[in-house]
C-alpha cells in the first residue's frame, strides 16, 4: 500500500519516500517520547499510521496568539455534533538560548492534531541551528475539517479567531484573565444553528460581534457587548409580535408598545425571554461585591438605582435579582454614553475601569449565550 505521508515527515523519520508499511511501523516503535516535541505517547504514532493509510484533507492555519501561552489548550468547534474545526494552543516552551520550560504533555487530542498539522504544513516543525528541529513555539493551530473553512464567511472566521484568541488585536489584560477563566475548563466551542457565525444572513449581528471582540478599551468593549443585546430588544419584540399577533392581536400590540416605550423594560424582557437571568444575577452579585469593597463607582450606581422609585421597586422585589443586574447594567451603559447632569458620568470615577473588569465576564457570557455560542 502506498504511504500517504508527506516527504518532510518521512525525511525527519529517516525513511525513504518508497518505504513500506513495516518499515514505517518499525521506525515508529523506535521513536522515543519527546522526539521533535511531537511524539509524546502512542496517540501520535497511531495518528501517523492513520494519515499514512488515509491521508488528511483538512485545512490548516497557523496563527500567532494574542497572548503568550503558558499551557496547552485544546478545543473543538462544533455545530451540534458536527465538527467544524479543532484548535490547539502550543504553549511557549522555550526561548532561544535558554533551557526548555517544563510544560505538561499535550492533551491526547492536541497530540493527534499536531501530527495532522505537520502532514499539511512542513513549517509546523522548525529547524533551529541551536536546538535542532522541533515543534513551533507559542502558536495557535486551527485545523478546519474538509470544506468547513470555505462554508464560513470571512467575518464569521474572524469572530472565531477572536473567540479562540488565535489572532486579532490585543484586548485589555482583564480579557486575558476572563478568557483563561472560561477556557481552562472548556474543550468545546459549540455554535447553535442560528448563531450568526454560521448563518450570516443577518450580517449586522456578525458585525457587532466582531466589533465587540476587537475592541481594546474596556468601557468601549462593555458598550459593544451591550449593543448586541440592545439590537436584540427590537428583534425580540418583532419576533413576539410575529408569533402571537394572530392569536391575540390587541394584547400583543399593547404589550409591544409598552415595551417600546421603555428601554429598561425591553432589556428586562430580552433577558427573561432568552433566559439570560443567571448571568445578570451574577452581574448584580458582582456589583454588590464591588460596593462592599468600597468601589466608589459601584456605590454610586447602586445609590442612583435605589433613588429611582420606579426602577428600584422592580429591582429590589423578591426573586428579581436578575432585574437588579439588568438595571445596573443599563445604568452603566448610560454612564458611559451620557455626559449630562442627569446620570453618573463614567469618566468621573477613577475606579470605574476596575469595576468593569469584574463585570465584563457576566455580560460577555450573557452575550455569548444570546448569540448561540456555548463553551462546554
Amino acid at each position, binding site marked *: 500500500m502506498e504511504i500517504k505521508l508527506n516527504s518532510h515527515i518521512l525525511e525527519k523519520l529517516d525513511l525513504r519516500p518508497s518505504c513500506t508499511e*513495516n518499515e514505517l*511501523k*518499525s521506525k515508529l*516503535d*523506535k521513536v*522515543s*517520547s*519527546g522526539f521533535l516535541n511531537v511524539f*509524546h*505517547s*502512542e*496517540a501520535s504514532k497511531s495518528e501517523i499510521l492513520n494519515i499514512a493509510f488515509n491521508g488528511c484533507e483538512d485545512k490548516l492555519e497557523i496563527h500567532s496568539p494574542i497572548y503568550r501561552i503558558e499551557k496547552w489548550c*485544546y*478545543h*473543538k468547534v462544533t455545530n451540534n455534533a458536527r465538527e467544524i474545526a479543532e484548535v490547539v494552543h502550543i504553549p511557549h*516552551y522555550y526561548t532561544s538560548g535558554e*533551557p*526548555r*520550560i*517544563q*510544560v*505538561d*504533555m*499535550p*492533551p*491526547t*487530542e*492536541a*497530540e493527534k492534531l499536531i501530527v495532522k498539522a505537520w502532514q499539511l504544513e512542513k513549517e509546523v516543525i522548525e529547524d533551529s541551528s541551536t536546538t535542532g528541529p522541533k515543534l513551533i513555539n507559542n502558536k495557535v493551530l486551527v485545523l478546519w475539517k474538509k470544506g468547513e473553512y470555505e462554508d464560513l464567511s470571512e467575518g464569521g472566521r474572524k469572530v472565531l479567531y477572536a473567540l479562540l484568541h488565535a489572532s486579532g488585536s490585543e484586548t485589555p489584560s482583564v480579557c486575558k484573565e476572563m478568557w483563561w477563566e472560561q477556557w481552562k475548563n472548556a*474543550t*468545546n466551542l459549540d455554535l447553535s444553528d442560528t448563531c450568526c457565525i454560521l448563518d450570516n444572513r443577518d450580517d449586522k449581528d456578525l458585525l457587532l460581534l466582531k466589533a465587540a471582540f476587537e475592541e481594546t478599551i474596556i468601557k468601549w468593549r462593555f458598550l459593544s457587548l451591550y449593543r448586541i443585546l440592545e439590537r436584540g430588544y427590537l428583534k425580540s419584540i418583532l419576533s413576539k409580535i410575529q408569533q402571537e399577533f394572530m392569536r391575540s392581536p390587541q394584547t400583543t400590540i399593547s404589550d409591544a408598545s409598552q415595551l417600546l416605550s421603555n428601554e429598561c423594560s425591553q432589556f428586562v424582557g430580552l433577558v427573561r425571554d432568552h433566559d439570560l437571568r443567571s448571568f445578570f444575577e451574577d452581574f448584580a452579585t458582582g456589583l454588590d461585591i464591588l460596593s462592599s469593597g468600597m468601589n466608589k463607582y459601584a456605590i454610586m450606581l447602586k445609590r442612583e438605582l435605589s433613588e429611582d422609585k420606579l426602577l428600584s421597586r422592580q429591582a429590589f422585589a423578591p426573586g428579581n435579582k436578575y432585574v437588579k443586574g439588568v438595571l445596573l447594567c443599563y445604568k452603566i451603559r448610560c454612564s458611559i454614553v451620557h455626559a449630562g447632569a442627569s446620570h453618573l458620568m463614567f469618566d468621573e470615577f477613577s475606579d470605574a475601569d476596575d469595576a468593569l473588569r469584574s463585570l465584563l465576564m457576566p455580560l460577555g457570557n450573557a452575550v455569548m449565550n444570546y448569540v448561540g455560542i456555548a463553551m462546554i
Partner: protein
Amino acid sequence: MLQLLCLDYDNRLKSYCVTARCDYEWYLNAVAGAEQNLEIQREIIKGTRVYATLRADLKRGCLMPPIVLAVKNLELPARLADHFESISGKETELELLSGLSLQLENVNSSSVYIIDGLQRTNALKQTLMELPESGKGAFLSGLVRIEIWLNIPFGALAYRMLLLNAGQKPMSIKHQVEILSMKLSEELSTITGIEIIKGSQHRTRKGQFQLAKLSETFQAWLQGQPNLDLRNLVMEQLLTESAIDVLGSSLKGDRPAQEKDAFRSFVGWMIAVDHLLPESDFQFLSNETVLQGLGAAVGSAERNPTLQPRMERCLNLLLEKIRSEPQGDPFGIVEFDRLRKGIDPAKVNVGQATRDMVFRAFKEYFMNDGVEAMSKCWEVAAGMG
C-alpha cells in the same frame, strides 16, 4: 610516591604524555591550588550528593578513573625538547622516563594544571579533611592513576579540555538507560518464565515483554517517578543523584546476596503475576503506562526506608491473592479500566494521566500496607488527578 609507567606522543597535540600512578599524598601536594591555575575550568560543584557518594566510596578504597594533568616549565631531555619524534624501543622510553622522574616528583604545584579531574581532586581533598587524624596516613597511601602532559601549549591544553568537557556534557537518564538496555536484557533473560522480545514483534503469550518497555520501566523505577520525558535540567540532576543512591544501595554488600538486584526481583514478580492473571487481563501488564507507573511506584518506595518493607509485603500479598484466586481481580483491573476510560483526551494526555494514576494507586496501596483493596486505591488515585 610517583611511578612513571610509560611515555607516549600525541601527534594531534604535538605533545608528550606520561602515564603514571601515584599515591594521594604526592598527588594532593602536586595539585595544591592547581584548580586556580586555569581560569576556564568549571567551578567546583560543592555539596552535591553525587560527590558525597564519591567521597564515601573513596573512604572505602575505590579506584578512581585516571586524572589528567598538564605540567609546565619542565626541562625536557634534549631529544624531546628539540624535535618531536615517536618513541621507539622500551629502552629509550625507560631512559627518557628516568630523566623526567626527578623533575616530576618534585614538581612545583604552581606549574600543574588539572585538565580533567577537578571534581575528583576536590572530592579527595574533602575526604581527607573529613577523616580523623588517625585515619589520614592510611588514606594518603591510596593510589590514583594519572596522565601528565609535558609542557603542553595553552592552545592544545584548552582544546583538550574543551573536548573533554564537551564529551562530559551530562547524558540524560533516558540516553544512559538506552545504552544500558542490551545489558539489561542479558540480566533479565535469566528470570524464569520471561521472554524478551525486540523491535516490532508483538506480545502474543504471557511472559513476553518488549525490551523497550522493560527499559522504560527501568527508567521509571530508577527515577521513582513516572514521567520519562524530563525537560527540567535541575529535576534531571536531582533524579540522577537519587538514581545513583538506589543503584548504590542495591549493590552487593548493602543487601542480602539473593536480593542484590532489586529491579531484577521486581521484574521477577511481574513475570510471576503476568502468568497468573486471567486471559481477560492479558493486556494489563503489556500496557506501557501500567508498567511505567508501577515501576515508578516500586522505585519510589525502594528509596524510602518506611515504605520499602511495606512495598515488598504488598507485592507478595498481591501475588498470593492472584495465586489463590486468579479470577478474584486483586489488582482491581475492572475499576482501573473504568476510570481510565473516563479520562478526557481533550483536556489531558491520556498516556500521562494513566501513568500518573497507576503510580498514585500503587503508592497508595503501599502506603496503606495493603489494607485497602486495589480497587479502592484506583479511586483514590483518580480523585487526586
